[in-house]
């Protein structure tokens, strides 16, 4: 039998932090959680991630943003913006893999 144990500790998640991406992004502000790495022995701390789609004004400085090539955009947006992918941490889980032999 194989599986894993997962649980959530409230003190393992720090407060949510606001990130200001700057005027050339929409939405301009996004939120991230940070994990405190407070998991017991044998457990590792795993971040849950969600990828947000953010618009960025064309011609604004390149900040190593990951541009989404395969995303269908309305033409009026496409003329002035590119879509970029921003991963945000949405939670922290303590997890442990195990294998049982019978």
């Amino acid at each position, binding site marked *: 039998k194989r599986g894993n144990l997962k649980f959530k500790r409230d003190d393992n998640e720090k*407060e*949510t932090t*606001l990130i*200001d991406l700057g*005027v*050339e992004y929409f939405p*301009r*502000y996004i*939120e991230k*959680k940070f994990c405190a790495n407070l998991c017991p022995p044998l457990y590792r701390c795993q971040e849950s991630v969600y990828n947000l789609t953010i618009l960025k004004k064309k011609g604004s400085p390149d900040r190593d943003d990951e541009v989404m090539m395969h995303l269908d955009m309305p033409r009026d947006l496409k003329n002035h913006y590119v879509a970029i992918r921003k991963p945000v941490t*949405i939670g922290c889980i303590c997890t442990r893999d195990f294998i049982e032999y019978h």
Partner: protein
Amino acid sequence: MDGGPYRKPATSLPPSLTVRCQSVDSVTFMRSSKEGWQLVVLIPQEKDFERAVTFTILESSDTIGQLNTTPSRNYTLWTTLLDKDGTPLLWQRGPDVYVWTNPGHVNYEVKIEMLLHHYKNGTRYIPAEFTWNAIDESDSCFSVVNKCNNDTQGVFFSDSIQPDGNRSVVIERLPLDDVCVFMLTGKYGQTLVKYRTPQCYDIQDCVPLPEQFSNVSMKV
């Protein structure tokens, strides 16, 4: 277009413009009165200006306009009212816009007042008013954002404060007994304020919730 129907200007001279604030990539200006449709053109003070002219139109209900700039350039604003068919009337030279330099960081003083007398019975939130100072005359465009821990992720308040507005904002729904962050961005950079909202027993008409226990299920 927004801004209501076209109204014929009473005079052919355009309302005068003043520069209200400038950032690394834009200039924000205000006109002295709301009068008809006003064309505003931003002309670089250089010889190859043809390639870089930008413009905007203030519609009947607008007082504030914004145009994009390059920080290393000087510009001049020119403006005229538009006749009903879109032809320009008299052109007037407006203020100059100078090279933008980063003024460095200064902390703003943010005052927070919890509007306890606006508490609505039976609710679990409270409105609050935030006010702040301006460092100098041209420090009049602000962006604010507020986030409380008990809000769902992805929920926060954000707004931009125009130069014709007060340096204040009211946020209607802050959760009680929570830790929040208020972030203010102005000409002199960003100031972060962390604060606590009042608990239920700090508010006169607030009735605390009964202790919540989880449901007990029994197997027979």
